[in-house]
Structures are given as C-alpha cells and as structure tokens.
C-alpha cells in the first residue's frame, strides 16, 4: 500500500480533463490523488509539455503550448500525483458510498489506493483502422508520429505517405511539413459526399467560428505546401519488401490504380473513447452512431451508471482538449457537492461558466463527425485483412464464426481467440462488433461489445502477489 490515506477523489488520467478536475477539486478542499501512466502531466495532447523537446515551437503550433497554463496551475495545486502508475483494476463494494479500491503498478511494484469517488479521465485512442498490410513495420498511426514529435523531436523516415480521414490527420500533415518532412502523398480515404452529409450540421458548427477558421487555415496550409493530395482513395494496401518492411502503398482513385514508394505510412480514422476501464467496471455504455463507437453513459455532470464513478474528457465521448478541460471541471464540482463541500446552489453557480464554454466546444462535433466519418472498409474490412493483430485473426475468420452461429463478440472471442492477446481487444473490439453486426444485419448496439476483463493492463504476477495480505 502506498499510504493509508483515504482520498476523497482519485482521478485516472492527467490530461486536460484530469488536470482541470484535480485543480478544481483541490481548490474546494478535496483530498485528491491524480494517477497517470506517463512520467508527468499532460496526457497525450499535452505530452512532454512540462519539458518540451522541440526547439522550434512553430512546428507543433500554439494550441500545444497553450496547455502550459493548465500544467503550471496543476503543479501548484495541493494534490498527490502518482506517475508511471498503471491502473490495472478498480473494485467497488456492493454498496454505494463506501470505498473504491484501485490496484495499480508503480515502477513494477503492486500498490493499492483507496478513494471515496473516482473520476475516469483516461482519454481516447485512435480508432482501429484495419486494412491489408497495416501490421507491417513502417506503418504507424498519425497519433504515433505526433507523439514522437512531442516527446523526442523526431520525424518519421521518408519517403512518407499519410492516409485516412480526420482533423488530426490534417494537423499532423501540417506539423510534419513545418518540420521539413517531404510528404509524398496525402491520401483522403473518404468517399464522395461527406460534405453534403455534414452540411446540415454546419449551422450549429458556426457557433464556434474560431475553431472552424482554424480548420480552414490548416487546409489552406496543406494546399500551399504542394503535398500531392489524392481524394476518394479506395483499396488502400501497404506492400512489403522481401524483408517484410513497408516498401510501397497501393490504392485506387476512381478506376485508376496507383502506387507510391514509401518507408513510412501514417494512418488515421479519428479517435474513440478509451473504454477499457469503464467496460471492466461494467458501467453502462451507449452506441454513438455519428462517432461509430460506444460512449459510457453519463449525465450532464459526468456521473456514470455507478453513483461514485464519474467520467470526463474524451473517455466519455470525443470533445477535444478544451472541451475535456471543461468536463473535468464540471465533474469535479459535482463530486465536491456530493461530498458536501459545496451546496447545490454553489454548484449551479460555479458550473455555469464551464457548462457554457463546453457547449461552445461541442457544437462543432456533429459537423466534424459527419465530415470525417470513416469509409466503410475501415469499419468492416475485406476478408483477408487481419482484424486482431495480437492473435492474428482475420475478418474472414470472424465472418466464418458468424456463419457458425456466433451471435456476439464474446462467443467469437471464445471460438477464435480474437481479442485475447496483450492489447486485450483495444485494436479489434470495434471492428469485431461491426463485422458481426453487418453479417447478422443488426446494429452494433444489438450485437454488443467484449466483456472486458481485469486487469485492464497486463500486470506482472509478482505485482499481484505484492497485494496478497
């Protein structure tokens, strides 16, 4: 046991949502523990910002460095921080209003921490984007390339191709271009018609003109950079050389077959909430059709289906960094009120500003969701594509299971080991549910998701033994 403190609030994730919540809760006198897998504050979005790697700040742009304000604030707060702390299990007793137990490993030591309330601010992950060849060395995600810029001032080996859809894809293309990387092709994998589908949501999006303007500026920057852009790309395939390293990307535009030689291929199809912990806790989830993923169910305060567990930031649905900070603050206020540190009246008053700001941040989401909605092939890939990278199970295998009578992902898992590897279903869960839904003509919501088992991160047996009484 780290210490015998009973924390009022434990926060998992030190990104914008977790940091904001920690600042707010500690301001109101709560005893707060903030936990993160990384070495310091920031989450993925403000990764390494406590000690930026890149000398040239123009590469990542001002949005990244704006996070410094939050980091400076949280550094001054009176909270207990646990870094390089990987939470692998949370247990709660049957009764509400009793103590939650958080099992974690800190520097390879098994530890346990107790808290009255839990805020999950575990962020997002990139949507799994299976296509032929996506397991080849040399193929990475756009998020990975951005992380390397932030943590290590590193850019991928060129020639480089970027393929997919989503705001982050455009941002990373611009950032790499600013960093002097020669981009051999930007492959837009969206089918025709996304602008038309997004149009009905434009009016709402106009409520956040600055963000919209930023997006347009990014597109203009990419256009000016003379990066070869290929639109409505289909049949994206990564091809290997004899030593199994990426050598070429092939695809189609219209009826035309194209090939580009490359050493690195970055792909992206948007981000989805990280639901491993909320699933393992058996909280309720709901299918979000526009974002084609599940969200944990929560009320306007971020309270989940368990009264002592709250969710904020991208882990509760994609809102972006600024929106995440507001949701963190709102949840922290509600938790403070639930522990009787502020009154309901104070809660209503204090929550006004962040609630209003949050509405402004989220108004653009339906527009973006529609505009960058992934092409069907990345949701339900062709037969020969690997779906589960860990256990090497293909889309064809999943379809075969459905023909054998598998009605959901859990039976499919039992039959084929899909989702049983070390990533614990993170990179195949959505795909498997989508394929089963398509094959059985049901919605993903009807088909359901994996029952996620503890531990939510692989844990050394020795660390589990550390907890034996």
């Amino acid at each position: 046991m780290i210490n015998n403190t009973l924390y009022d609030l434990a926060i998992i994730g030190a990104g914008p949502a977790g940091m904001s919540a920690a600042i707010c809760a500690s301001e109101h006198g709560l005893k707060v523990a903030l936990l993160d897998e990384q070495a310091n504050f920031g989450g993925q979005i403000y990764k390494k910002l406590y000690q930026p790697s890149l000398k040239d700040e123009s590469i990542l742009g001002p949005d990244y460095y704006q996070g410094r304000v939050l980091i400076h604030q949280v550094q001054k707060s009176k909270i207990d921080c646990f870094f390089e702390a990987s939470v692998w299990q949370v247990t709660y007793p049957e009764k509400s209003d009793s103590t939650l137990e958080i099992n974690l490993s800190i520097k390879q030591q098994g530890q346990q921490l107790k808290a009255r309330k839990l805020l999950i601010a575990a962020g997002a992950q990139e949507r799994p984007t299976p296509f032929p060849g996506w397991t080849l060395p040399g193929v990475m995600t756009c998020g990975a390339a951005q992380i390397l810029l932030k943590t290590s001032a590193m850019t991928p080996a060129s020639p480089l191709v970027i393929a997919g859809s989503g705001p982050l894809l455009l941002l990373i293309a611009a950032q790499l271009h600013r960093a002097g990387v020669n981009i051999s092709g930007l492959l837009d994998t969206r089918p025709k018609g996304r602008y038309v589908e997004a149009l009905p949501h434009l009016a709402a999006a106009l409520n956040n003109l600055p963000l919209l303007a930023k997006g347009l500026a990014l597109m203009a920057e990419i256009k000016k950079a003379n990066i070869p852009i290929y639109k409505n790309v289909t049949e994206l395939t990564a091809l290997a050389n004899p030593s199994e390293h990426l050598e070429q990307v092939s695809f189609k535009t219209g009826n035309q077959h194209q090939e580009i030689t490359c050493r690195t291929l970055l792909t992206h199809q948007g981000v989805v909430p990280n639901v491993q912990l909320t699933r393992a806790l058996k909280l309720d989830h709901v299918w979000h059709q526009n974002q084609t993923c599940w969200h944990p169910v929560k009320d306007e305060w971020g309270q989940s289906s368990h009264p002592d567990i709250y969710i904020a930031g991208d882990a509760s649905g994609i809102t972006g960094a600024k929106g995440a900070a507001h949701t963190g603050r709102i949840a922290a206020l509600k938790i403070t009120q639930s522990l009787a540190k502020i009154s309901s009246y104070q809660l209503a008053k204090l929550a006004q500003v962040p609630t209003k700001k949050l509405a402004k941040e989220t108004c653009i989401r339906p527009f973006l969701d529609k505009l960058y909605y992934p092409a069907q092939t990345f949701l339900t890939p062709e037969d020969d594509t690997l779906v589960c990278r860990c256990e090497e199970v293909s889309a064809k295998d999943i379809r075969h299971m459905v023909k054998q009578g598998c009605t959901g992902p859990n039976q499919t898992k039992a039959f084929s080991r899909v989702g049983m590897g070390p990533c614990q279903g993170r990179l195949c869960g959505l795909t498997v549910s989508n394929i089963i839904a398509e094959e059985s003509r049901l919605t993903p919501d009807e088909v359901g998701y994996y029952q996620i088992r503890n531990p939510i991160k692989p844990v050394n047996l020795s660390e589990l033994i550390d907890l034996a009484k």
Partner: protein
Amino acid sequence: MTQFSTGSSHRPDVCVLGGGIVGLSVALGLQRNGLIVSIIDEGDTGLRASRGNFGLVWVQGKGDTLADYAQISRLSAKLWPQFAQELFSKTGINIELQQKGGLFFCLSDDELEQRKTMLTMMQKEANGDYPFEVLDLQQLRNFIPEAGPEVVGATYSPEDGHLNPLFLLRALTECFIKQGGKIHHSGKVCKLSKHGQSFKVETEKESYQCDQIVLAAGLGNKELAPQVGLNAPLTPNRGQVLICERVKPFLNYPTGHVRQTNEGTIQLGDSKEDVGFDTGTSTQVMATIAARASKMFPLLKNIRLIRAWGALRIMTPDGYPIYQASQTHQGAYLVTCHSGVTLGAFHHGPIADWIANDKQDFELEAFHAKRFAI
C-alpha cells in the same frame, strides 16, 4: 408474441436447453442415435461456465466419497480419445487432448499425506485398479524441473489429462451444426410444459415443440427443473481463473492449479467462493492464487497476467452431478454437473444413449436428486 415453430421438418425430436459443453456433448450423442436435435441457448453474454473453465480431463481424487462418480469420471477419461478423434474427423478441429498424466502439487507435508490417504482409500475401493504415485520433490522434478523449493511433493495419476476447452466448444458447435442441428439464440427459457406427448419450450422470444427435453442449462436448471417434475438444488460457486501471456513451453503436464495450453498461455486457478451470481474478481483471491502458483513455479513471478475472471461453477449440495429422468413428465431429463469437460465423453456416450432410448434408469440412481431430500 408467441410463435410456434411448426412444420414437421423443423420440429425436433429433442430440445436441449443450454448450448455449453454439457448440452452440446449430449446433443451430439443424441444425433448419433438418429434424433433431430435443437439447442436453445442464451445470447452472447449469458453466464458461461463453458468459456471459463480450466480444460482439465481430471480423474485423480474425484469421487472420494462416491465410488460411482469415480467410475464415471474414469470411464469418461477412457472414452475421450475416441470422442476427440470423432470431432477431429468431422470438423478438422484438434481439441488438443493430451492424456499423459497429471500432477497435484502439495505445499505442505500434511496436504501430501492427506492426498496419499485419500487416493489409497480410493484404490482399495476400486479393488486395486486405481493407478497413482506419490512423489517427493526430487521425484517430481523428474517430471517438472521447474517445481519450486517450497513444494513438498505431488500426487500423479497417469489417467489425468487436459484439452483446449475453447477449441472443444467450437468443435462441438461446428459438428452439431454440420449434422443438421439447430442452435436457437432466443433468450432465456421461461416456461416448460407438457401437452399430450409433446413438450412446449417457451423463451423470451420464441416457442418450440418436441418429444423430449434435456435440461443442460447449467445454473438455469434450478428454475427449469421443477416445471417438469425434477429437482435441481444448485448454487453458483465462483472459481477464479487467471490467464497469463503466452510463453515458451515448459509445463508438459497439467496440474490441479496451473496448466499451459498448446499455444503457450498459462492458466492459473482455482478458488472456491460462494458469491451468488457475481462473475467479478476480487483482488485478494487473485493475489492468493498468484502467490500459490509462484510457490509451485517460482519462474511464474516473471509472467504477465492478461485476463482474469470468475466463472461460476454449478454445484449441487454434495458437489456431484444430477442425472435424472422425470417421473411425472416422461421424456424430460436433467443433466447437470460442474465438470463438463472431464465428463464430456461420458455425456456424449452413455448419457446420450440413456436419453435416446428413453429409459427410466436405475444404474444412475446414485445421481438422482432424491439424495438431497430430507
């Protein structure tokens, strides 16, 4: 809405309630007897004992207080190679059956002595035909060099073995469907009734008619049995299973607590907890299982745990199975046990034959639920 599955081509002879290892094994045996069989099963997230078990085909120590149970366990172990072969030839799925013996590790002198006494008694009961060996640590290390210094010894039975329970479930399912069987995922069975010669099975969504029914619904049998004049006093008992990452093969024999699958995964079990229907895991039980396993195999402290869960064992008050034909509702049978893997070949063979021939049996009297009557 109730909807009858009518039309003679769709009307099965037998409905098996429950598509786990027990239900499927019996169903395949019924098909072998020429019957048309349907399985009525729950959806994707039902309480699945079949997906949570350890995969042991285990004989040693089973039935120490009921000789009949020792007999059927051993009979099943003997029938397994043929059943596995049959599944392979029909589906191409190798269930990785291995029966070169199994070891039960003991961490104290007392424990080893108790097991020795128990097995000796069982040997006597079987008129000497009950092979086992008691090994000290040195002898044990001839089998498994990785046994740790805190291990006192082990008991060994050459009749023990293991298989891959997930492949088994898949092979049984594929075989059943290939032979014309139908699996209906139509929700929980809510009502059973008999009308003339036929049974009516009503689920949340559908309704079916048939001549015979087999209750193989695991814990679900408790509610269903009384509707057809049977009694299934079952309680859930949680066994926690810890699944670790794949590692290079080192464990060539299954043990009562640790086994390595063909693909390299290490499984650790088990505990006995009465917890109602909660399939969760508790830290202390997991930590205790891990600590014990690493005493048996110190090298396991370097392995990573990937998944843990509590599977619910289906326990009668004395832990033994119930096999019983209904007196009041002729054609209704109850098959319930907690060792669906070990007894799989027995269920596919003698139990299915017994049901197919619609016998009001006597040989199985030891397994009647009337033993629980006060």
